[in-house]
């Protein structure tokens, strides 16, 4: 199967500053992948290059088997929804209409339903919309385009929780009926976690984690209780992030715990709490590879 997106040795340099540093991975078609990382980690730069809006300093990017730059065949099959999308002096209805002409899989029905659900005023000028409404418009276009490769770059700026929930629900529903390859950059990991099949974490321009989302859940556990008992339980395990107050200690141990481990923890009067995907991702940057029992790319 040809990867939907294939990136090899991709670097991007701005005036001597490395924004992206030797990024390599393939994205299988028909999946939802979360592109995670802190602000300034390189997520937007990466998406702009994949979308053909920006050139790489080194390395190659192919989308649907071809180079995306100025390639209309590829560009009509890919949509990039970004936070700071600029529209010409358009009204909402014109922006939607223009997109419907460009994208061959466009669904008028879905666009109409979403415009209503997001309460978007069709006759208002796009530049007069609030930030949240502009994000909602981007979401409507991004979903209704039903493009084979759909890139969402933090698509929720200014959206309230209700609208964000709506976005996730509609994305999931339409994706289920019309599978495509979705790359969603976000730092609100908890919100989107259930949607993601894979997560790629970028930190300072490098990929620090590229793993199946479900492989990460339960891959590390917080162990807390009397310090002596914590020490006994964690002996011989891979431990990181130990905190201590008086005689109490809290440590994070890598690896899945089995029934025997749990019984032992109970006997030692320890509390166990699995780390969530969000907590794991926060730890992923800058921790040694053996911490997470999943594939890690980049050294």
């Amino acid at each position, binding site marked *: 199967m040809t990867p939907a997106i294939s990136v090899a040795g991709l670097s991007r340099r701005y005036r001597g500053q490395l924004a992206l540093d030797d990024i390599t991975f393939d994205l299988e078609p028909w999946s939802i992948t979360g592109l995670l990382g802190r602000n300034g980690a390189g997520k937007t730069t990466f998406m702009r290059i994949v979308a053909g809006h920006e050139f790489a300093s080194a390395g190659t990017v192919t989308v649907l088997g071809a180079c995306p730059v100025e390639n209309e065949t590829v560009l009509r099959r890919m949509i990039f929804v970004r936070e700071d999308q600029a529209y010409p002096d358009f009204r909402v209805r014109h922006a939607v209409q223009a997109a419907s002409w460009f994208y061959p899989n466009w669904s008028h029905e879905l666009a109409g339903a979403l415009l209503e659900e997001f309460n978007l005023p069709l006759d208002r000028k796009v530049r007069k919309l609030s930030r949240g409404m502009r994000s909602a418009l981007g979401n409507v276009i991004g979903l209704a385009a039903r493009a084979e490769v759909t890139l969402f770059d933090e698509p929720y*700026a200014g959206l309230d*929780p209700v609208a964000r929930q709506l976005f996730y629900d509609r994305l999931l529903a339409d994706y289920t009926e019309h599978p495509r390859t979705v790359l969603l950059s976000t730092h609100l990991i*908890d919100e989107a976690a*259930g949607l993601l*099949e894979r997560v790629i974490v970028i930190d300072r321009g490098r990929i620090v984690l590229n793993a199946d989302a*479900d492989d990460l859940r339960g891959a590390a556990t917080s162990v807390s209780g009397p310090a002596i008992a914590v020490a006994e339980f964690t002996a011989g395990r891979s431990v990181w992030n130990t905190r201590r107050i008086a005689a109490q200690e809290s440590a994070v141990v890598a690896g899945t715990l089995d029934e025997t481990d749990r019984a032992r923890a109970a006997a030692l009067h320890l509390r166990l709490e699995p780390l969530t995907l969000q907590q794991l991702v926060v730890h992923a940057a800058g921790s040694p590879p053996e911490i997470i029992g999943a594939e890690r790319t980049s050294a």
Partner: protein
Amino acid sequence: MNQGTTEGTGLLREMAGLDEGAPLFVQVAERLADEIADGGLGEGERVPSTNELAAYYRINPATAAKGIGMLTDDGLVEKRRGIGMFVADGARARLLGERRKRFAERYLEPLVAEASRLGVGADELAAMIRESSYAQKGTRI
């Protein structure tokens, strides 16, 4: 809209009781297995489809499919070409048998451990079990 007040408010998508601490596909498989064990999903009945499960739990359909796949691998659920997945014959009895085996380590050992921590002896514990509200309701123990 002000970004500071609308973003990062810790919106947690409610996933019909699934939690983030264990693989979601395993949890989906466990829920279905629970339903089969309880008899809510009878043998020969149709198992919800991947898409139905994805919509209900608000999870990726591939994750839901992996959950059903786990049950298929265990022979608890079988595919009938063109119509969907169904609970296999004998699935309930097999599940209950396995759970009986795991009962001691999952429930009995933690119970005894906590009892000993509290200084509750074996006889006292047995009496407490007999007096528990479940036992009082007529559940045979």
